[in-house]
């Protein structure tokens, strides 16, 4: 685990996610928060052009002003497969509507849908499931 992106315009949530990750033993220095989709796309573009690694984990909020989470996913598909293939995207939303959950599940690039708030237990589970070999406690 080398790089984690959190994308949400909600500062409180970003802070919360950082704390959770920290509690799960993640070094806060590898966690980057983005408030706008535009910014994260820029970062990914730069990574592509500089042949840097994409984040291992991306926590994406759906409801964002302007370009939202769904728009991001559309754009994201345009990155070369070999660069993005190791990135695990989780949608993070306060939505309790099954439609959003279904839509998230139907999206190939998305691993799972996480209802807010993110908890230490769930994060630990995700890390155990998808990143067990990389995690150092």
């Amino acid at each position: 685990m080398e790089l984690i992106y959190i994308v949400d315009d909600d500062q409180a949530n970003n802070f919360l996610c950082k704390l959770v990750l920290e509690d799960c033993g993640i070094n806060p220095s590898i966690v980057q928060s983005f408030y706008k989709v535009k910014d994260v796309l820029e970062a990914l573009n730069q990574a592509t052009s500089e042949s840097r690694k994409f984040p291992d984990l991306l926590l994406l909020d759906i409801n964002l002003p302007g370009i939202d989470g769904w728009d991001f996913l559309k754009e994201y598909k345009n990155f070369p497969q070999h660069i993005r293939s190791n990135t695990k995207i989780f949608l993070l939303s306060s939505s309790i509507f099954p439609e959003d959950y279904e839509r998230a599940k139907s999206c190939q690039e998305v691993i799972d849908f996480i209802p807010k708030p993110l908890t230490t237990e769930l994060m630990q589970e995700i890390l155990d499931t998808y990143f067990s070999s990389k995690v150092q406690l």
Partner: protein
Amino acid sequence: MYLFEENKLKPLDFDLYYVKREIEAILNTAGSSVLLLNKRLEVQFYSKGILDLYNISNSDIGKKISEIEGYFSDCDVTFYAQKILKENTGFRGKVTTQHGKHFLKRMMPFRTEDRGIVGIIVAFTDITELENAKHALEVSEARFRDMAEVAVDYFFELAKDGTIVYVSPSMTESLGYTPEEVLGRKIAEFIPSNEAEYVIRHAVKHTQHSDVYPPVTHHVIKKDGTQIIVEARGKAIRDSSGKLIGYRAINRNITDRISLEKEQEHLNRLLEQRVSERTRELEEKQQQLEEAQRLGKIGSWVWNPNTGYLFWSDMMYEIFELKNSPETSFEDFKKRVHPEDIDALLQKEKEAIKSGASFYESEYRIVNNSGEVRYLYSIVHLNRNELGKVTKLIGIAHDITDVKQREEEKRKLINDLIQQNKELQHFNYIVSHNLRAPVANLIGLAKLFRKNESSERNNKIIDSIYESALSIDEILKDLSNILQLRGVIAHEREKVLISEVLAQVLKTMVSDIENINPDIITDFSAVDEVVTIRSYLHSILYNLISNALKYRHPHRKCVLQISSGLSENFIWIKIEDNGIGFDVEANKHKLFGLYKRLHDHVEGKGMGLYLVKVQAETLGGWVDVQSQPDKGTTFTVFISRNH
């Protein structure tokens, strides 16, 4: 006139002399040939006319009648004269002369009051013509009888009410009944019940305007219960004033001649007859039908596409408001169908005719005589002949304009409800989503809080908790505002001036105005005064102007043009800016959504346009938007004038 000569009278015949006058009278009145005999049957007198019957002359006076030669073969005057003398009665008979003349012979005693019978009068009346006529009649009757018996099996007469008043004896042979068995009974008793009514009506109908009725084929029940088929012809019997008093009919038994096919054909005809019967009954109900049509706004029509014959019921004329117009034609009808519907209607008709269908339905609009558009629903039946060719189109047209209008209103209402429901769902979605976000934060953060620990981490958590709580508060405030807008609380409408409200709005954003210093150009010359909810108008102007300022172009002076105008039943207020603009198509779904934001470079909750939209809708209108990136945006708010 041949009279006695008085000197020739003999004393014995004296009594005869007394009746001279009476004889004269007889001769005068009867014009007959007369012979007068005395009791000894000697000729006493003869009139000239007797010479046709007897070779007699004056020298024969006094001779016995038996001695005088008669010109006939059998005229036994002597025998009857003796009988008269003996029995004192009269006698009459007929004689025919060798010349072929016929005479009525009358013999009677001749009496005086005191001396009894004194002689016998023999009178002959020439009835040759009468006899000839009678004979001719007999011959013709016999001929007729012979003919009738060959051509007709029996004949009969009916009273007006169908009572049998006469039957020919030949009926016995045909039906087994003797005339006595049927006289006085009704004709209907001898016809199968399913045919009787028709047959009788046939006779009644055809004798209304003519004396004879055309042949009608039907069954007759024989005495033994079996049936024969007869062809009945008949005529009306009328009294001298022409009033119908009964019927005379002849029946021919055609049972044997009717083969199986004929029987079938006959049954078909009966069926057809019954159908026409039924049709007639239906015609009788026309009155009720017309009434029903009037109430139900249903018109009916018949059209023959081959001849162009078109019939319209009164209601059709009423639907088209052509009540006092002359009869219409199909061409005329076509002109009155709504121009947008005529092609489809004709196409449908054409297809139905071609496809062999027996009916089709259609719905179309017409323009009635007053220029009003009416909706008609039509069912059309196609009558075809045995070759399948359409001979007639029979249709009804139901004016469903009212129904349509109600339907339209209902549809609108349903659409409104669906729209509102959608909005409520969306509202629900947004609210729960947006409300849930800070709540989720609260829950998550509280969980991360480490009790009994004083640390930078806990302080930060508390700060975030506070921020989230503030968010919740703000959302709840928005909610109550929106619910208020949604008409939970009634607002009063009043006359306001747009220019005045605008001035108030600009006052509330005075610091922004001072900073940005936009050029604001207003034109309310077309309309300034509106009847509306002041606070809504205020909010609409506030939100649109603050948006225009917020999304102004960074490199040019901000220019706002605010104007108003009238468009049909709406007042519009236009706010045009030269700001950064946006792609309308791409952002349609977000533009007026609650908590939706197009831009992320400036602060905003995504409430403004949502409020503008809801308020415009509450005022019976809508919001229109035009924008081009980098050029500017124009919002036009429509408000209903009579809401």
